[in-house]
């Protein structure tokens, strides 16, 4: 199977230059019904090659791979190679790339490996991915890693829940707050009243109650046990090092719905790659990894002791600890989870603009003004936030007019805060008070594409109804939507407007997503971009892959609900 791609001649030339013969290795994967044991609960689930330890596929840039996938389930399955540039028929999305893999069948994927870096793979059928159908891909670059290390580990995170994916989806549709066990209670009201007065506390409750929204609505699904490489905190995944060695951690977030804040207390992390593409090294203390993203970080533990890899969910409802240690019998220390954040009115900007105001009593706000300045911000709960990170004075009220545009990111703000709505309650801070990675810190190591003006702009409004747990794009669910049509060879600018109160990790298959951070040719090249609530974010895509592709929110239950589009690339080589 030969497929032309503009990168291919380049890859071939590089291959010749380095005199590395193209391999054509065969890999076998079985998709199995397995028993999953997290140490806190046991459940039936799905695993690749019969294991809850994620399979790691190790490829070499330039090789032609043949991957035989045997479906041992009693239902159809599929494997999508997340982030890989390949012919669309090999992309593994049932109904778009191919017809899926029937029970008992073996499907053979064949495609050339034209890139290097850390990626992952997962089922794109039903709720098999949250049920355990995911693994890692590590592709060695032709010329060796830009930053060589002595140790190299995949650190693949997931949010393993005792309920099956389909049950979770059903429960959320029945009651959107089904899994929210971090709701504000009478006890919180008493505490708030004590802290800032009863009137302010009641006013705050009244404001959220008027909207029928919850400031605690950060994680749809709680009650999971996070795992690192299939192991929970008690099972304690451990990576071995010798003091002084450089250790590359390939962080992959394969969660169904959970963003993780990752740190290695006591060590700086040097971020060298994001979503498989090398970035200019940036030293941070902590980073937030959205669902489906990958980050490669390098740490250099110098002491002969156990260090912890901590993954704390962004909503602070769960945490996992893995260990880096000089010997396998050592266990990294456990840390206390930080206080739960609360959403603010800034995160609700989109809900405001998209909402029907007829039934709203905004506690004295003047509706005729239709301006955020009419809201009584004094009732807002700032207790959980770093006020220094909130530049309220710089908040552009004019940009938040109801029905108008949401603030464009990167916004001016503290480090790590640029890609959130100004005043957002979701802005993370490092546990040690140090540097927290933001998209604004990412710059491509080498530009992948020539910088050029986009041929056109396409607006993608991320929409939904939280109470009904309905998710859509431009207010239309996938089943009722028309495909997005792109022309081969054009450069499209996507304008993402997040009108919901949740962050959405948007993933375009088959083509790269270049996040506009204002760096031109050096803007970071990714496959997944997290759009924070109440923000407008721009990305650009060089339309260089013919065929039809999936484009969706990577939160499993948002995708299943319809926050999904088919993208058809017209023209180009067939």
């Amino acid at each position: 199977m030969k497929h032309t791609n503009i990168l291919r001649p380049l890859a071939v030339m590089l291959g010749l230059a380095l005199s590395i013969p193209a391999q054509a290795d065969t890999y076998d994967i079985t998709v199995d019904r397995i028993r999953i044991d997290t140490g806190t609960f046991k459940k039936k689930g799905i695993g690749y090659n019969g294991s809850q330890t994620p399979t790691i596929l190790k490829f070499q840039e330039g090789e032609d791979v043949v991957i035989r996938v045997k479906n041992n389930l009693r239902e159809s399955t599929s494997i999508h190679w997340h982030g890989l540039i390949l012919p669309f028929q090999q992309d593994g999305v049932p109904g778009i790339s191919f017809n899926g893999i029937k029970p008992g069948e073996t499907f053979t994927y064949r495609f050339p490996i034209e890139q290097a870096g850390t990626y992952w793979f997962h089922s794109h059928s039903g709720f098999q991915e949250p049920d355990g159908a995911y693994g890692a891909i590590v592709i060695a670059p032709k010329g060796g890693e830009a930053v060589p290390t002595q140790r190299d580990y995949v650190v693949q995170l997931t949010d393993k829940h005792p309920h099956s994916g389909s049950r979770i989806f059903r429960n959320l549709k029945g009651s959107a707050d089904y899994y929210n066990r971090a709701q504000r209670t009478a006890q919180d009201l008493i505490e708030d009243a004590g802290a800032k007065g009863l009137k302010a506390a009641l006013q705050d409750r009244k404001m959220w109650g008027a909207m029928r929204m919850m400031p605690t609505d950060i994680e749809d699904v709680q009650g999971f046990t996070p795992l690192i490489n299939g192991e929970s905190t008690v099972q304690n995944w451990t990576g071995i090092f010798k003091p002084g060695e450089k250790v590359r951690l390939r962080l992959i977030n394969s969660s169904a719905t959970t963003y993780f804040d990752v740190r290695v207390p006591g060590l700086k992390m040097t971020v060298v790659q994001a979503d498989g593409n090398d970035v200019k090294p940036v030293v941070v203390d902590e980073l937030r990894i959205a669902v489906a993203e990958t980050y490669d970080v390098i740490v250099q533990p110098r002491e002969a002791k156990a260090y912890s890899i901590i993954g704390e969910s962004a909503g602070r409802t769960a945490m996992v600890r893995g260990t880096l240690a000089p010997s396998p019998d050592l266990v990294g220390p456990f840390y206390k989870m930080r206080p739960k954040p609360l959403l603010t009115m800034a995160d609700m900007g989109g809900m405001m603009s998209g909402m029907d105001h007829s039934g709203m009593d905004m506690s004295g706000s003047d509706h005729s003004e239709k301006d955020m300045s009419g809201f009584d911000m004094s009732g807002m709960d700032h207790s959980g936030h770093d006020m220094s990170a909130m530049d309220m004075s710089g908040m552009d009220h004019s940009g938040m007019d109801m029905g108008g545009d949401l603030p464009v990111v990167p916004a001016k703000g503290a480090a790590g805060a640029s890609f959130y709505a100004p005043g957002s309650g979701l802005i993370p801070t490092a546990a040690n008070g140090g540097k927290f990675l933001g998209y604004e810190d990412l710059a491509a190591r080498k530009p992948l594409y020539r910088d050029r003006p986009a041929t056109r702009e396409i607006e993608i409004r991320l929409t939904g109804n939280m109470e009904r747990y309905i998710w859509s794009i431009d207010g239309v669910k996938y089943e009722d939507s028309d495909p997005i049509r792109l022309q081969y060879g054009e450069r499209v600018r996507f304008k993402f407007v997040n009108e919901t109160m949740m962050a959405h990790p948007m993933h375009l298959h088959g083509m790269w997503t270049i996040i506009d951070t204002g760096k031109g040719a050096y803007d970071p090249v990714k496959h997944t971009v997290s759009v924070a609530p109440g923000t407008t974010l721009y990305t650009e895509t060089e339309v260089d892959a013919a065929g039809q592709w999936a484009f969706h929110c990577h939160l499993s239950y948002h995708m299943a609900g319809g926050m999904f589009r088919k993208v058809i690339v017209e023209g180009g080589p067939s």
Partner: protein
Amino acid sequence: MGAYFKENKIMNKLLLGMAFGPLLALPFASAAVAEVGVSPTVWGVRTDKLEYRVGDDNKSLAWELQAWAGNDELRLVFLSEGVKIEGGDFEEMEHQIRLQKPVTDFFDGFVGLAASTPDGVPERYYGTFGVTGLAPQWFEVEAAVYVSDFSYVGAEVEYEGLLTNRLILTPSIELSVPLVDDPERDTAAGGASLGLGLRLGYDLIGRNVSPYIGVNYERVFGGTADLRRNSGEATEELTGVIGVNFTF
């Protein structure tokens, strides 16, 4: 006639209610393997009350059950509600089947059929329509009109007060106002009946099993109260309740 006839009657009434049940499955029988990005059909079954009531005069078993299936656009909802006196009659027995559809962000409109078939009084059947949803400040409300020769209007308000994330205090108000006289049922136009409840529940196993205790107060007013008094019946009743709710 005696016991045999009575048993049969009870069975008939139960069967009538159950007959609505299988209807739920029909429109959604073809729920095959979900296509990517397309909402699968979902369903749920839950009790809002399943309790033993202890009053001055008698003890009774009361239930309120809801089963639904559908998608974001349309849901078929089956409701069953009743009270059985311990060792006696079904004092209340209501079944409804509804088609429910979103009309605003937070409210559904519905149309349906309702059957009221308690013991000792004539059966009544209604066409019904109304709205149900979430009002500002988290009040769950429902208002409906029941249309027949004996039409009435009904409304319900419920609030879930989170004492903690698992210990939940739920006050509720139910009101129904007959629009026409129904002397065979001791009911007069405008003679409202009111139910007040206060239940303290604890989510024991997820949201699946939630035992609770509480109080329930029911009272009739106006012409209805007069009719009940004339028949030697009570016009108000206060009961202590103990129960457990299930969600599937």
